């Protein structure tokens, strides 16, 4: 009996692998549940077991898990073998301003532009647009028509992490964020960037964000 249950689970994990393998890009857990004809809870469970299986030294890829989406990517230790035939160099030039903004999005995200501007003391709309175009950052609608920014799967692939929590000292800075914005962010918004945010918020909200997952 137990044996059967175990085998069934392994078959489910194998079919999860097949789907991730064939799809090739980030896919929502919801969609996975639909394809595998199961509940979202079971998908979560399968994912966490599959993740463990992939840790084995004879496996060549790992699983990146970000909120409601996952993707398979080659393990970081093979980057030197692979970079020779995949010409890609995201590593080159990030200006200090871009790096600053990217760190805030990575460590404090999801974060609004107003909050980023507040910390940096600089209007970041231009740099955020750049990061969006480069695909290192993505955004989703937040409250009141403004956007929340967070790093993308491409960012995680670039740093070879399976989630942002893998970043060094991640928790320390996430906690810091709470103390920064403990008093309502709305007040900060009001006081500081008044005009701009509402305006570009409107612009952006027009565009739709969760475009990633459906074909």
């Amino acid at each position: 009996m137990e044996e059967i249950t175990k085998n069934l689970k392994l078959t489910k994990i194998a079919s999860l692998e097949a789907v991730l393998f064939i799809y090739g890009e980030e896919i929502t857990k919801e969609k996975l549940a639909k394809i595998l004809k199961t509940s979202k809870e079971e998908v979560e469970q399968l994912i966490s077991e599959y993740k463990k299986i992939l840790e084995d030294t004879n496996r060549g890829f790992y699983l990146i898990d970000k909120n409601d989406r996952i993707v398979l990517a080659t393990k970081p230790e093979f980057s030197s073998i692979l970079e020779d035939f995949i010409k890609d160099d995201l590593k080159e030039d990030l200006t200090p301003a871009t790096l600053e903004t990217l760190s805030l999005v990575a460590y404090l995200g999801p974060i609004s532009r107003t909050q980023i501007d507040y910390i940096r003391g600089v209007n970041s709309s231009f740099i955020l647009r750049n990061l969006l175009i480069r695909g290192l950052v993505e955004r989703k609608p937040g409250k009141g028509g403004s956007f929340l920014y967070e790093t993308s799967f491409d960012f995680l692939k670039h740093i070879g992490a399976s989630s942002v929590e893998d970043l060094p000292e991640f928790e320390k800075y996430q906690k810091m964020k709470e103390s920064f914005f403990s008093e309502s962010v709305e007040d900060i918004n009001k006081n500081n960037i008044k005009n701009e945010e509402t305006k570009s918020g409107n612009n952006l909200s027009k565009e739709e964000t969760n475009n990633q997952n459906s074909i």
Partner: protein
Amino acid sequence: MYEIKTEEFSGPLDKLLELIESKKLDITTISLAQVTDDFIKYIETLKNNISENQDDSDIFKNSRQLADFLVIASGLILIKSKSLLPQLELTLEEEESVFELEKRIQIYAQIKPLFALMKKHWLSTNQTYSRGLLLSMPTVFYPPKNIDGFLLNKSLEGLIKTLGSYFYEQEKIQRQLFSLEEKISEISKKIINGISRFSQMIDQKSKGESIVLFLALLHLLRDRVLDVNQIGTFEEMEITKL
């Protein structure tokens, strides 16, 4: 590989923090007042660098950064003016903005190590790769159901509009920028013409411009070109030429 561009100046909070640290001060309102002059001086050197720069594109980019400096400068000016003119009563909003600035510098000081950490991490980690969407999938023609030329047209129109307002926004930020010297000479002229009240001067000006005007005023004050009298709380500031 990665290289810090030397012409890239640090942001206003970074500069402010640097000034405070170079004087070995704690981050307090008093220290902010103490570094205000240096900060304004720094803005002027920035501005000079920008006008010496022949490349229009950099002027665009740098002048935007200058605008960011001016916004912070306006908070500093408030602090400084309070220390120069102790009788100056601040409105609640102004009090808050003084407090805010102090808080922001503290936040910046706390977060700054993150930037170095991230840079190191960004450079030292290993790129990983996903397969790419349906990598081994052949092209099959799957047209969407409800689509026609008008739908495409409408979608594009919306997109162009969005892009347009983005550029408008960028231009607006740039327009808010005014040369300090220009404003100084404007003030001098107006004083000579007998318009001495600050409120008359900022009449019908945008907020950004008022900030610059006030900044210029303080500048003249520091250089002892002007004298400012405020009769009482919430009263008009009377400006006279010395």
